[in-house]
């Protein structure tokens, strides 16, 4: 799988390229229009000056004379760095005055009243040239005299640069602003994706119900697919659970028969070795029976969590019953077992069957793996919570293993064969009731390792 660039990165790159290209086009366009504007403005001045000079042409005593107006040059001097060249040609084509080597590609014969403009070179300098004609009607000199006026283009170029620079600065600032706004809006637009990711991340691994995050329309197909997939997964899980429950149920019947058959075997007729084998087989069969029961119990708990309406129940009552079920009559007489109810009635909203199953499993676990000589079961009022505490004097479970033991088929002692579902069941029940399975390490004082089933309390009306 190749590592894809982020959406944000892609959008940012594409937009930056677009903005840069757009800015380049705009700057070029503004340079072009600035040049046109500058040329236009200075052309007017040039033509104005040429007309003014042409105005000073007159025939006096049979000779064409030029009254060269200083104001015409002053006007051209508005472009204060530009040099000025001119040539005045009489109707016969003779140069009257000015720069004799100033040539243009304009055919003077075609220039009459309308001024003609062109660009050219004079002494290697780029110049703009205006030619205007003036009609002379004196018998001594009749026809069209022409004024050829050229100006270097420094001021035009200067103005073009100035205008372009101004426009370019504006364009660049606009692009920068656009980029910033774009980055912000991409971030804004992509936020629901992050939110969706967060919602998925925070989700309980057991929770396969549809997502209920509100997302923009564009993300709905995505959420729909996730939900569809989760639905299918859920079906699979339900099927699997049912299969396990069925399997456990199916196993139980032959197992019961097997246990009964084993009991029928007369150990008295067996020799020592066989008796040992038999005893081990019986032990394994017991474990298998217990595991099967737990599987069934687990399946039941899960099923009830989904299907049974919770009702207010008295935790004292449930715990007492569970205690009775969990502590067998055949319990080792050396073990001191005690049960202690809370003083007041502790009401929780729950499913009595599941709760009892959970407590039974916790007590059973303590008896099997913890208790050496003492087991205490207590129901306690802990503020907003009601606690069922199961304390034993065994070595307990090291705190680093606490999160692990609530998972299925995990026990605290890796070497021991019996993989338990006890804590998993209790934990699942607690979760289904909005509570939790907690542990308290063995203290330096008298109290031993304690497993606590904490459930939120409710207060029944009127009490």
């Amino acid at each position, binding site marked *: 799988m190749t590592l894809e660039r982020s959406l944000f990165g892609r959008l940012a790159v594409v937009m930056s390229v677009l903005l840069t290209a757009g800015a380049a086009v705009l700057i070029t366009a503004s340079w072009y229009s600035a040049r046109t504007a500058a040329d236009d403005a200075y052309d007017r001045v040039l033509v104005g000056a040429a007309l003014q000079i042409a105005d000073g042409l007159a025939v006096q005593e049979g000779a064409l004379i030029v009254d*060269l107006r200083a104001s015409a040059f*002053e006007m051209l001097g508005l472009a*204060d760095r530009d040099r000025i060249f001119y040539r005045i040609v009489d109707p016969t084509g003779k140069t009257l005055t000015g720069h004799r080597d100033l040539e243009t590609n304009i055919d003077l014969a075609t220039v009459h009243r309308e001024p003609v403009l062109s660009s050219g070179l004079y002494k290697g*300098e780029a110049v703009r040239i205006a030619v205007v004609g003036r009609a002379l009607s004196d018998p001594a000199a009749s026809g069209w005299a022409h004024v050829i006026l050229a100006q270097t283009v420094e001021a035009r170029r200067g103005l073009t640069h100035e205008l372009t620079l101004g426009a370019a600065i504006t364009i660049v600032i606009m692009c920068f602003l656009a980029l910033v706004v774009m980055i912000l809006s991409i971030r804004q637009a992509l936020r629901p994706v992050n939110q969706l990711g967060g919602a998925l991340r925070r989700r309980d691994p057991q929770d396969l119900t549809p997502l209920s995050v509100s997302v923009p329309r564009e993300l709905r197909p995505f959420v729909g697919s996730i939900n569809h997939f989760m639905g299918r997964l859920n079906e699979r899980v339900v099927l699997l659970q049912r299969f396990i429950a069925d399997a456990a149920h199916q196993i139980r019947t032959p197992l019961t028969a097997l246990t009964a058959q084993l009991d029928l075997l007369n150990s008295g007729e067996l020799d020592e070795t066989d008796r040992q084998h038999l005893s081990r087989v019986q032990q394994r069969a017991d474990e298998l029976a217990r595991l099967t029961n737990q599987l069934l119990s687990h399946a039941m708990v899960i099923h009830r969590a989904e299907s049974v309406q919770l009702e207010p129940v008295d935790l004292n009552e449930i715990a007492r019953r569970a205690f009775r079920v969990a502590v067998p009559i055949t319990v080792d007489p050396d073990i001191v077992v005690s049960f202690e109810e809370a003083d007041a009635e502790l009401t929780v909203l729950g499913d009595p069957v599941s709760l009892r199953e959970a407590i039974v499993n916790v007590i059973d676990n303590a008896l099997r793996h913890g208790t050496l000589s003492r087991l205490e079961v207590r129901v306690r009022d802990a503020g907003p919570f009601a606690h069922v505490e199961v304390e034993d004097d065994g070595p307990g479970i090291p705190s680093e293993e606490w999160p692990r033991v609530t998972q299925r088929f995990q026990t605290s002692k890796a070497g021991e064969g019996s993989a338990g579902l006890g804590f998993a069941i209790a934990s699942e029940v607690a979760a289904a009731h909005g509570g939790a399975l907690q542990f308290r390490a063995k203290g330096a004082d008298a109290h031993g390792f304690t497993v606590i089933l904490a459930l939120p309390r409710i207060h029944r009306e009127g009490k």
Partner: protein
Amino acid sequence: MKSRHLVAFSLGIAAFALVPTLATAVEGTTRLFPAISSEAARLSIHGAADLEAMAPLIRDFQEMAPDIAIEYSDYVTNDLHQKASAACEQNTPLGDLWLSSSLDQLVSLANNGCASAYNSSETAQVPKWANWRDEVFGFTFEPAVFVYNMRYVPAGDVPRTRAELADLLRRRLDYYERRVGTYDIRTSGVGYLLAFSDARQATATYGRLLESMSRADVKVSCCTGSILQEIASGRLYLAYNMIGSYSYAAAKANPDLKVVIPRDYTLILSRGVLIPKTSQRPDLARRFLDYLLSKRGQDVARRKAFFFAEKGDIPEGVDGPPTLGELSFVQPIRIGPALLAAQDEAQRRRFIDDWSHSMLSQPASSP
């Protein structure tokens, strides 16, 4: 190398020995200002400005740059223009720095691409009207003035405007006939520029003045120096459109001479300076130009050479307003393309013909 030094040194001695005789500038001469310490480089200035005015500036510059020798060639404005135009056209070197009071000629040279531009913190101080394209700079501020000899012109006669001058010549024609001097604009570029500016500034007044001067059989001369000498000697009583700096220098030397700044309007001429593109040592030329425009150079110019300045009081003994700078009747001749109109050959010929015609009652023909 050694022998060149020796030559330069002996030339320097010779030039130094000649100083007293050169005190009244003889135009068209070359003079060497030897380096104070041993000569490392030589700057050649071709100018149309009186040597005695330029000498203090050159010497002061050498104080700052003791290893630079300066060769100063003095011309009449028109001669300088001719030589400079030719040098520019043929691309042959003619000195490293051109200096002229005939601004129209400098502008024309710059317009034809003969100048190289220079930009520095000093040139940035030059007012806009005295800088064209960073190529032509005006470094002085010199009014065009009336000069008279107080022994011959009674206090009641002293004119303060052009109209008064025209009236005076009309009223006392007998007394002032052949006793008034001005520039011969055929030979003096400055004279032409001043006359052209007068004609633009106040056409009617100028016409009247021209007519009066013509009737008084005005004496024309190429140079301020010779007219001032004639006034000092009493052959002439009064002169029109004299350059303020030279006139004031002459007035300082001879208390009989008096300077009047006209009150109707005063033309201000800024002596121009330009670095030709054919300059062999543009670096030295730029240093000297920077010096001319610097505060130190301007100070020396004001105290020892040109006496007037845009800011500050007018020199003592001059009949005029206390300062020149902000007055509305002060008309600086703008260094810029408008001067090209003055330089047009046909225009110039016609203007000079008209002038000759009315002033000297001569049929038109320029020498």
